[in-house]
């Protein structure tokens, strides 16, 4: 079971990496070509250096060869600059593709996609996790391709000068898959271990910093500081063990590369001195030797660079896996949106038990009735499940038990009243842009209609006034309007949508008493023909309620029996 899942995850991950890197295909192709040309430019440099040395020793003029060398260097530099530029673009294209995939899935599946984790974590998944993909398209794929193409180009050039030097290089290249595998697995493991340990350390630090007040009350600052230090040191030691191994692998690769270059150098050196003891069937001139020697490091450069890119691949694979599993999860059920109701229904909750994660209940066996044309206030302390009851109507959490009836008809756990609902939270959303933008997002209406509604909810006193307001630009989160005005804006939206069910979640949490009274009056004004449910522990709302449901008196706990004797 687990193995199948693992296989499937791997397939998903590969698929995701392919899909998201696809938009950067053109750039990746260009980078590969440019890198190959850069290798050719290096060959040009090697040849010109050989020619320079030869010419100088022969007492000839070397200017032409020198200029050729300088040109090669300049061309190579230019190629690398352009290829780096494309590599940044490729990386960004991949990140952008992944982000778009998330947003498209969000558009497709709706809000249920983000359930299950805090909004902070979701934001960091969308922005930070996707950013980890950058190195895959920017460096890993081009690096991998160049580690195949680059050495081949160089070794051909070496063969034209000295077959022994070429053979020496080829001999070592046969071992590179082993190097790659060695360094690859080790570096990836090291990167992961380091990432994990840093995250764990951050976590340990975070919970302690978050609970600083509590730790202070228990006079435990000193103790917890020591505990934190110990935990960090232990993690450091663990990371070091893995890192040491990974560095050793890199060192071995470097060592072999050095040995191989040294062998080429020694062969050329002794050959030139005329002291090489074996017949190799070639007479080596200084020019040929110099060329072969300058080419040798470039032969290993792409392979060495690749070994330093494994963390790019590791990071990207981990991120892709995480994102793909999230986006492709089959547990995300988009609720069925029932057709819009014409008038406010009678809502009946019958022993409803709800849960955010599907196992631990947040509301147990709650029964209540919300009547048409009334404002029903659900009160109770924070955490008693007021919000959950509202969300149940949107099928935004798991209903474990119980029935909800809408005008007598059952509402299945995966059916949502979203089409008929206006849902308002304590800090209503507003987008950057004009008030008009904020209203037309909900419903496309003429300016006249919008102005009427603005006057209706008391945001403006006259048509002119309302027109000015329509054009007023709001900052992020509705900056430019007071808390009370923002709530009025949400009522305006609810009116524009003509929603028969109004759900409010702690609407007065950020309002002063006067604004709160105004909001209540506004709700009273419009409640006829609608069903209004307010989750609030504010006294003013409780007093104004037509029906008050107090959750703290509703929920019987199972372990009561054993306490009644005390």
């Amino acid at each position: 079971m687990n193995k199948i899942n693992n296989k499937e995850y791997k397939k998903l991950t590969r698929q995701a990496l392919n899909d998201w890197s696809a938009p950067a295909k053109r750039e990746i192709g260009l980078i590969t070509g440019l890198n190959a040309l850069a290798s050719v430019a290096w060959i040009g440099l090697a040849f010109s250096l050989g020619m320079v040395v030869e010419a100088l020793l022969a007492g000839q003029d070397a200017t032409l060869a020198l200029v050729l060398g300088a040109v090669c260097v300049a061309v190579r530099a230019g190629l690398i600059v352009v290829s780096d530029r494309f590599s940044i673009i490729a990386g960004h294209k991949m990140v952008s593709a992944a982000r778009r995939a998330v947003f498209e899935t969000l558009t497709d599946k709706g809000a249920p996609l983000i359930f299950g984790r805090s909004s902070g974590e979701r934001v960091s998944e969308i922005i930070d996790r996707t950013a980890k993909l950058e190195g895959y398209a920017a460096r890993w794929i081009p690096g991998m391709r160049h580690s195949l193409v680059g050495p081949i180009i160089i070794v051909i050039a070496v063969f034209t000068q000295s077959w022994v030097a070429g053979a020496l290089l080829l001999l070592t290249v046969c071992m590179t898959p082993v190097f790659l595998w060695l360094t690859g697995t080790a570096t990836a493991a090291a990167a992961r271990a380091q990432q994990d340990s840093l995250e764990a350390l951050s976590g340990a630090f975070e919970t302690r910093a978050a609970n600083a007040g509590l730790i202070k009350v228990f006079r435990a600052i000193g103790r917890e500081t020591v505990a934190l230090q110990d935990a960090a040191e232990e993690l450091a030691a663990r990371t070091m063990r893995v890192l040491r191994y990974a560095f050793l692998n890199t060192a071995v690769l470097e060592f072999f590369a050095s040995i191989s270059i040294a062998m080429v150098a020694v062969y050329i050196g002794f050959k030139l001195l005329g002291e090489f003891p074996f017949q190799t069937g070639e007479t080596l001139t200084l020019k040929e030797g110099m060329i072969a020697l300058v080419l040798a490091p470039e032969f290993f450069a792409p392979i060495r660079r690749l070994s330093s890119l494994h963390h790019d691949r590791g990071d990207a694979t981990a991120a892709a896996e995480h994102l793909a599993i999230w986006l492709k999860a089959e547990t995300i059920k988009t609720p069925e949106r029932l057709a819009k109701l014409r008038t406010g229904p009678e809502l009946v909750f019958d022993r409803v038990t709800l849960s955010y994660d599907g196992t631990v209940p947040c509301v147990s066996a709650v029964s209540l009735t919300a009547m048409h044309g009334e404002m029903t206030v659900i009160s109770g302390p924070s955490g008693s499940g007021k919000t959950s009851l509202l969300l149940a109507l949107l099928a935004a959490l798991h209903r474990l038990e119980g029935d909800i009836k809408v005008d007598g008809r059952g509402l299945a756990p995966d059916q949502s009243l979203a089409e008929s609902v206006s849902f308002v939270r304590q800090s209503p959303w507003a987008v950057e842009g004009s008030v008009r933008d904020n209203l037309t997002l909900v419903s496309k209406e003429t300016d006249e209609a919008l102005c009427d509604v603005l006057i209706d909810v008391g945001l403006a006193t006259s048509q002119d006034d309302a027109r000015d307001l329509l054009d007023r630009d709001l900052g992020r989160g509705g900056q430019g309007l007071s808390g009370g005005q923002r709530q009025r804006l949400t009522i305006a939206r609810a009116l524009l949508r003509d929603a028969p069910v109004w759900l409010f979640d702690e609407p007065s949490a950020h309002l002063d008493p006067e604004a709160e009274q105004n909001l209540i009056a506004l709700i009273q004004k419009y409640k006829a023909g609608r069903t209004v449910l307010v989750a609030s522990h504010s006294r003013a709302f409780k007093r104004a309620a037509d029906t008050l449901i107090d959750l703290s008196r509703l929920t019987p706990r199972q372990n009561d029996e054993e306490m009644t004797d005390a």
Partner: protein
Amino acid sequence: MLKLWSDLGRPRQNLILFSVGLSVIAGASGVFLLGLSGWFLTSTAIFGAAGLGLSFNHFYPSSGIRAAAFGRVISRYFEQVLGHQATLGLSADLRAKLFERQAKATRGTQSLPSAEMSSLIDDIEAVEAGFLRVYLPIIAVIAGCVLAAGFVLLSSLFSAIIAFAALLIVAWYLPARAAKRSRAIAETLTNNQESARNQVAQLIENAIELDVVGALPALSEQSARSLDDVLEQRRTVERPFLWLGGVAAATSGCVILLIFLLADNSPEAVALAAGAALAVLAAFDASGAMVKAIDAAPRSGASAARLHDRLNRTSTIQQPLTKAEKQVEIFPVIAQDLYLRPAENGPLLGPYDLNISANSLTVISGPSGAGKTTLLEALCRLQPVEKGLLTYGGRAAQDWRTASLLQAISLVPQIPSFLDGTLRDQFELAKPDVSDDEILNALRTACADGFVHLEAGDLGKAFQAFQTHYSGGELRRISLARALITQPQMLLLDEPFAGLDPITARTLARRLEDWAKNGDRALIIIQHEDIGYTWSDLNYSNKTIRG
């Protein structure tokens, strides 16, 4: 960076010095290897061509090449190992110290806002990366450049001066200028990044509302576009750096050209020139690392400066430097015209008046926002006294060591919070040598013995506040039991009965009353609703506060 390091008390000095030394060796040996090889090969060729192969002493140079090759590999390896060891160690020190200072400077039990927390963690990571990715590479490059200039000096003084100047410009001046220029744009970039992030956060936080009204697609598209814009701007910021690699390579070509042009035609001079050319090539190649380092330097520098400020933030609670006392008498606790400020820039709340003695119960009620929780936090010295008087046992709060007072005071916050660990760890936070009997008694008083079973080994089970089978109300009672462990003289309870059914609430009230009466203790309770319990054994007083 250095300031931050001295804040920490200059730890791990030897390790840091060693890795710096190894960095120098690694940087120098890379250049030395190529320079010596170039000279050696050219010399062998010259001698070989002249038929003098046997007279050329190739043992010293070739062993020098071997030594440089080995030295480079080995010093790189140890530099990485020691550098990482130093960094990981420093980060352990840094986190511990930061936590300690942070804890001393916080107000109340509210945790850091998540944005501040994540920027703090970003800062820590930027500083950690600083040593490894900024300082060590810069040192290695400088060592390599100096050595390369030395090689060129053997060939020609003039070339050496030119080469050194070119290296200085390419490896230092240009990257620094590019960094400076991009920093100006970087600030706007950071702002845009922040605002795109906020936009996504708003989208996610309001996803349900937006889904309901059908605005999710439009706003998703908007967010995607903002994030793309930020990526595009980042490309603009990085552009000046891109050219640096090209400039470095082109300059190295010109310098090599110059070296050969200025060299004599004698065989020795040609050999030296070849060595110098290759050394310069290696130095310029290594200077590519400088670009990244100089780019990252201001960022980790700014992070280090922020953390330095954070470490030197003065504690909000002023207290004398005397040692904590063993036995303390805190009653009566008196507040007169007391004003508090729940957040550093928040509004002033008050005035509050209180008079608390042993064997008493004070019920505090009032509208939300009136500062009930802030008042409780002030009573256990988590909030500074802004104005007015707060005395314990006749001594002003400011004249007490907080540690002395907290032996006798404990707080049960409204929202219980726990550290990761076992259930037992939670109690050990309050008292490190707590016994099972003490825990059992506390659980009983807190009405938590019905669902925590010591005999079933519940204490040893992993306990994480967010992943536990205990309900919110149960967690609250565990948090109460933990506060009881310290046997405080004064217990502050923030909404202890919220969410409890009336019967459990009354049972809990009775047990708390017995506990207080039997130990001459005082209870202070924030309570919204009446639970229908008559407190007959304690001196009851009711305090309504207004914002």
